[in-house]
């Protein structure tokens, strides 16, 4: 078989990025944690200070607290959005055909989970992946990394888009994480709260594999 070394060809399109590996992902995860703290701590401290100084400053203090809550919440929402289902642009027959091929690529459990949640679970060396139509979540230890990544044809059936990402992931997991854009990294509960109810099941299942 004329197999190539397992390097995703798309990595060449992001040549300036260092190749993702476990250490780099963990480092980026810590950076996200610091960035979140940097959004929360100063505003909470300011709110406390303003409240201590004067009752009249309480409305401003409340605004500071709102800011401390909303900005990290927006980042977490951005993370959850990567696996949000996309509007269907293809007919039902194409979806069924695509589902058949995707079903051939994954095992029974993953097929069942996909039917329930729209996400395909895939164990990798970096962690456990949940692959959606236009993004993927990586559950690694106690954190989740949310990646925006897609196939460049919006008219493909949803299952085909997942199959594209799945094959790329299986070819070169680190390359896949390199090509994908990181939208969020943080505690799974922050993303979970902003996902649709069925998808939470998939995230719970992935988190369970990491315990």
């Amino acid at each position, binding site marked *: *078989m004329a*197999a*190539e070394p397992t390097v995703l060809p798309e990595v060449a399109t992001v040549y300036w990025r260092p190749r993702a590996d476990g250490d780099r992902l963990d480092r980026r995860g810590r950076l996200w944690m610091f960035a979140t703290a940097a959004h929360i701590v100063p505003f909470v401290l300011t709110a406390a200070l303003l409240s201590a100084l004067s009752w009249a400053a309480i409305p401003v203090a409340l605004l500071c607290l709102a800011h401390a809550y909303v900005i990290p919440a927006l980042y977490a929402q951005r993370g959850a959005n990567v696996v949000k289902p996309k509007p269907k642009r293809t007919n039902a027959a194409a979806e069924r055909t695509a589902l058949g091929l995707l079903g051939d690529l994954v095992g029974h459990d993953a097929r069942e989970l996909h039917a329930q949640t729209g996400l395909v679970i895939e164990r990798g060396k970096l962690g456990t992946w949940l692959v959606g139509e236009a993004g993927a979540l990586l559950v690694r230890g106690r954190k989740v990394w949310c990646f*925006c990544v*897609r196939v460049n044809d919006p008219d*493909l059936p949803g299952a085909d888009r997942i199959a594209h990402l799945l094959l790329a992931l299986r070819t070169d997991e680190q390359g896949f994480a390199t*090509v994908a854009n990181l939208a969020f990294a943080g505690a799974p509960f922050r993303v979970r709260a902003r996902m649709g109810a069925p998808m939470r099941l998939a995230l719970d299942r992935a988190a369970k594999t990491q315990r």
Partner: protein
Amino acid sequence: MSKLVRMDQSGHTTLAEWTAGDPASVEAAVQAFREQLDLGYFGMVSTGEGHAEQVKELPVDAPLVILRLPISGG
């Protein structure tokens, strides 16, 4: 019988079917495979559970070769 399928807007399309003992069907499949590579598709074969490899020549002994489009960060 091996298959060459392309993931496309119809779900997927079977572009060629061949058996290793039939040179004519192999030749037609190789030709179809090369045409798709020229169009920008990547050839993929599954190599066990959770693993896949990119191929630049049609692996005649593979039961299923899938053609996919490039991916990119969203």
